[in-house]
């Protein structure tokens, strides 16, 4: 599997790219500018030196007195002519009283049968100062330009992508179960507008499919009731009809048992789809103590051993009264179904939790699937496999947290209740 790439925000990414490009541009343009200006200045100095040298030569050939101005101009008579050269050199400058860098042009000329060596120098410091000044001013200007561009670009990008971000938030908030369609911000950008159209189409389709699926479950469970009613009525009629033999009665009785199972299955599936369809809107304060006591009394005859109920204070929850009963019933009946015979079931109700525990032989094999539809550990107990799925649905609806653990040979089902 590929490593997940590190995620970075769009605006950050574009800003980062801009900054990097700006930096590279700045560095290279500054280096370029530096060499270009330096070259320009060098040529300028060289031209100046050559022009001074030409003037001196013409002055010597005109028999004018030899012009000396050390260290800028030095004229000496030499015996042999040497090669001309141009270089940078360090010379003590008495006027500045320090060693300075000079550009030096040494030429040899034969004027009026006399060999001269003419040395012309120019201070480099000056041109270097110019060079630095140019580069710094360039840097300052371009820095301001980049900062300005950076913020302009950022605000432009933000504005440009604004519909995208707004719509992204809308999509995050999108819920399948919500009745209202997703509402997206329109944009004058063609691609964004197209994206909106596609998203709206997709979410509408998904919502419609989801609704159909839920409706389907409800419809099926509803439509099955009538044929089941007919089958059941006919079985009842046969049982009371002409004399049957014991085997026939046994089989009819078994059909009744299975009809009952189908009825339960149907009813529970219908209940789940009704919870999913959010059709339980009759929310009122429900006193769990009262409901539990009532349900325990109702079911205690079905359980040969004791059902113990402990509670120190009244717990009142805001929820649909019918669902509160179903929640308590399902937890209780689950414990009754799976409890070891002749061991008590203990129900503890506290301010922030409701727990039901019963003895068992071993822990549930796949506790993570316990609250899923049709999860069954074994075929020993005939169950619809929907009781705990309904518990989970009700918990989801009201933000309760169901959990399961097994310790001391006991199954513990705990529902964490929100603070009221």
């Amino acid at each position, binding site marked *: 599997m590929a490593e997940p790439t590190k995620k970075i925000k769009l605006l950050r990414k574009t800003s980062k790219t801009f900054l990097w490009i700006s930096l590279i541009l700045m560095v290279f343009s500054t280096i370029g500018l530096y060499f270009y200006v330096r070259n320009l200045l060098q040529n300028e100095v060289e031209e100046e030196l050559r022009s001074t040298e030409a003037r001196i030569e013409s002055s010597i050939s005109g028999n004018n007195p030899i012009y000396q101005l050390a260290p800028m101009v030095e004229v000496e008579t030499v015996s042999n002519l040497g090669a001309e050269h141009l270089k940078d050199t360090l010379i003590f400058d008495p006027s500045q009283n320090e060693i300075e860098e000079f550009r030096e042009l040494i030429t040899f000329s034969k004027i009026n049968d006399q060999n001269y060596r003419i040395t012309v120098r120019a201070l480099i410091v000056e041109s270097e100062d110019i060079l630095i000044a140019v580069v710094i001013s360039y840097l300052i200007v371009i820095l301001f330009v980049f900062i300005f561009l950076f913020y302009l670009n950022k605000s432009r990008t933000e504005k440009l992508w604004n519909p995208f971000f707004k719509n992204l938030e809308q999509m995050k908030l999108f819920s399948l179960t919500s009745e209202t369609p997703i509402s997206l911000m329109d944009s004058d950008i063609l691609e964004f507008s197209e994206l909106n159209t596609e998203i709206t189409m997709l979410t509408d389709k998904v919502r419609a499919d989801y609704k159909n699926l839920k409706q389907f479950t409800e419809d099926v469970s509803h439509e099955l009731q009538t044929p089941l009613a007919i089958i059941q009525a006919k079985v009842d009629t046969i049982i009371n009809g002409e004399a049957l033999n014991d085997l026939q009665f046994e089989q009819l009785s078994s059909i*009744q048992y299975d009809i009952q199972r189908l009825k339960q299955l149907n009813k529970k599936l219908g209940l789940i789809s009704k919870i999913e369809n959010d059709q339980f809107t009759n929310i009122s304060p429900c006193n769990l103590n009262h409901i539990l006591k009532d349900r325990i009394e109702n079911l205690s005859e079905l359980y040969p051993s004791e059902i113990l109920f402990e509670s120190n204070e009244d717990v009142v929850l805001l929820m649909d009264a019918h669902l509160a009963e179903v929640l308590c019933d399902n937890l209780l009946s689950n414990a009754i179904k799976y409890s070891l015979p002749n061991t008590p079931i203990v129900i503890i109700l506290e301010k922030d939790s409701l727990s039901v525990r019963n003895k068992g032989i071993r822990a549930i094999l796949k506790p993570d699937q316990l609250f899923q539809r049709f999860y069954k550990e074994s075929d020993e107990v005939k169950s619809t496999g929907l009781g705990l799925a309904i518990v989970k649905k009700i918990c989801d609806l009201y933000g309760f947290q169901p959990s399961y653990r097994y310790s001391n040979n006991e199954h513990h089902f705990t529902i964490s209740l929100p603070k009221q």
Partner: protein
Amino acid sequence: MKILIVEDEKALLQSIASYLEKDGNVCETASTYEDALYKIDLYEYDLLVLDINLINGSGLDILHLLKKNKKETATIIISANNSLDDKLKGLDLGADDYLTKPFHLAELNSRIKAVLRRGKFGGTERLEFNEILIDTRSRTSYIKDKAMSLTRKEYDLLLFFITNKGRVLSKEIIAEHLWGDHSDMVDNYDFIYVHINNLRKKLTDAGAKYIKTAYGSGYKFMED
């Protein structure tokens, strides 16, 4: 008793009618909305068994009309829709009971009798079977004028037996009547045998041997 059964599923309609006729009731049937309106308009009935979802209309409208015309007809709604809203709506409109499909005919029969026992339909809240007498208002039972001490479930069981006397009742029917949705909770029906045996013993001790075993695993309440 004169009973009108309104139900668009003819098979179910026939089963209900023939079950109720065995008790000596006169049953008329209507399988369409129009037919039901017509019959209600023309005749008087003691009881109406009414399906809500009819092809051309709602049973609730029929009920509404019935109440508007101030007819003293007891009504039991039978509906495939088990939503609480529908149930409340039906009861608000003046229905006397509400039964969700599918149901056992014995259950419907016992609900009908319970409704008819109520004073407003000229019934009596006392139910007699030979030496047994049940006062449904105080939920007490007497045998040979002596009060019987029955548990809640034993009392329900005795009442169910007497209202369905002479009928074969399987343990499934009994379990469903006594515990409704929870009857599937325990695999075997031992818990039913316990209640039936206790009740049978109490009756037998007083000389009433009416609970008979039928076909090995079923029950029938009848005279010898």
